[in-house]
């Protein structure tokens, strides 16, 4: 097949223009702005109601600045899931691969960053902050995760976010986002609109915020959330919590962690030891709307999670926990253990 001269010309020049643009951006990258490549690696064991699931996983992260005002970010997740069959007790495995986000950030001004691409839905705090598996204190996500993050925690569209106002006493930050619908396998998303507003008081390390999502598919749904995080400087306690509400259900999680020995002298090995406790409750207001499940348990559920974690130098984490779940569908024990490690290195040597 012969191509028209105009197309041939474009085919010739486009790569050159792209190369010049890329090199132009590269030349303005400061020495400390070398693109980074990070890999989280982990092994997860979960025994819930007597059935065990084992998952080795890796999560590569790429962060590449392009010039002074652009940033490309992406995170993938690859895992093999070995799940025990309830009837035969045999293990069956399947491979699972997904892309958590792939986004371009444009730092437009001191107060506005424009984000485009596939990004994590900024509802509540869990989805954006605690889904990298090397960060959270508990291996299992909260029961209310489904509220405000439909369908699956990611959105395809645009977002404006930033620090609206800040001084020594208070910081006000915001996120406004929209998403289009997509049925493409790795880019599944729904038509949504949402926002989040947070007040952070740095002297107290106290954060209070609200989230909202309007789901605009066949059934229009509103989701609202409130979050409160408090990590006092002088007390060895960290409090994180989210409350979320939608038309069919609502619930909360409240987590406390106790870094008892961190930064307080004593034996170096003890510094990484951290007990944690999480309380969760979900309440069913109405049955799920057909075709639009909210992701919460079908009946009211209470769960108490008791964890004992060990964090070594911030890069390696051993999480263990026991949970007791209470619901009208039956109570159950959940035993979790995971070991994660995060590698972080520049993509190339660069100049010092």
């Amino acid at each position, binding site marked *: 097949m012969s191509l028209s001269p105009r197309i041939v010309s474009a085919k010739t020049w486009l790569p050159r223009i792209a190369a010049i643009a890329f090199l132009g951006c590269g030349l303005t990258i400061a020495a400390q702005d070398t693109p980074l490549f990070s890999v989280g690696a982990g092994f997860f064991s979960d025994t819930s109601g007597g059935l065990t699931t084992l998952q080795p996983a890796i999560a590569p992260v790429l962060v590449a600045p392009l010039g002074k005002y652009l940033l490309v970010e992406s995170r993938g997740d690859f895992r093999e899931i070995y799940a025990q069959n309830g009837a035969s007790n045999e293990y069956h495995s399947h491979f699972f691969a997904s892309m958590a986000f792939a986004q371009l950030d444009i730092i437009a001004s001191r107060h506005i960053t424009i984000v485009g691409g596939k990004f994590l839905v900024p509802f509540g705090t869990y989805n954006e902050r605690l889904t990298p598996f090397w960060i959270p204190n508990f291996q299992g996500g909260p029961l209310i995760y489904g509220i405000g993050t439909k369908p699956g925690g990611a959105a395809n569209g645009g977002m404006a976010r930033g620090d609206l106002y800040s001084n020594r006493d208070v910081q006000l930050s915001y996120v406004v986002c929209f998403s289009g619908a997509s049925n493409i396998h790795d880019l599944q998303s729904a038509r949504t609109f949402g926002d989040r507003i947070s007040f952070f008081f740095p002297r107290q390390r106290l954060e209070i915020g609200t989230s909202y999502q309007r789901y605009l598919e066949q059934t229009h749904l509103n989701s609202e959330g409130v979050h409160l995080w408090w990590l006092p400087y002088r007390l060895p306690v960290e409090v994180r919590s989210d409350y979320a509400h939608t038309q069919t259900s609502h619930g909360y999680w409240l987590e406390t962690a106790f870094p008892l020995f961190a930064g307080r002298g004593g034996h170096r090995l003890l510094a990484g030891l951290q007990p944690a406790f999480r309380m969760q409750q979900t309440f069913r207001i109405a049955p799920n709307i057909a075709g639009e499940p909210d992701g919460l348990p079908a009946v009211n559920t209470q769960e108490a999670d008791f964890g004992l974690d060990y964090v070594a130098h*911030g890069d390696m984490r051993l999480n263990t926990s026991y949970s007791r779940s209470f619901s009208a569908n039956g109570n159950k024990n959940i035993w979790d253990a995971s070991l994660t490690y995060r590698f972080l290195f520049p993509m190339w040597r660069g100049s*010092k």
Partner: protein
Amino acid sequence: MKIQAKFAALLLSAAVGVCAVCAASQDQPPNQAPRRKAAQQQDRGERAFKANCSRCHKPPEQLSPRIAGTVIRHMRVRASLSADDEQAILKYLGL
């Protein structure tokens, strides 16, 4: 005579005062002001780091200076860091 004595005492006390001020100013090394400013910046950067980054995660064991700017820019987007906090944390990290 009394007036002269009073005047002499006043002169003496003024001279002592001037000497004391001079001595105090000589105690300080000439480059103290920049040092104090650097210490204040370091303190501000440490506070910004503790307030923003440590809210979600522990600091990594090692952070190569080559990628520190990239990490902070990522945090600026993810944690809605202010531009001032971004610069303060970069300085705190010694860059």
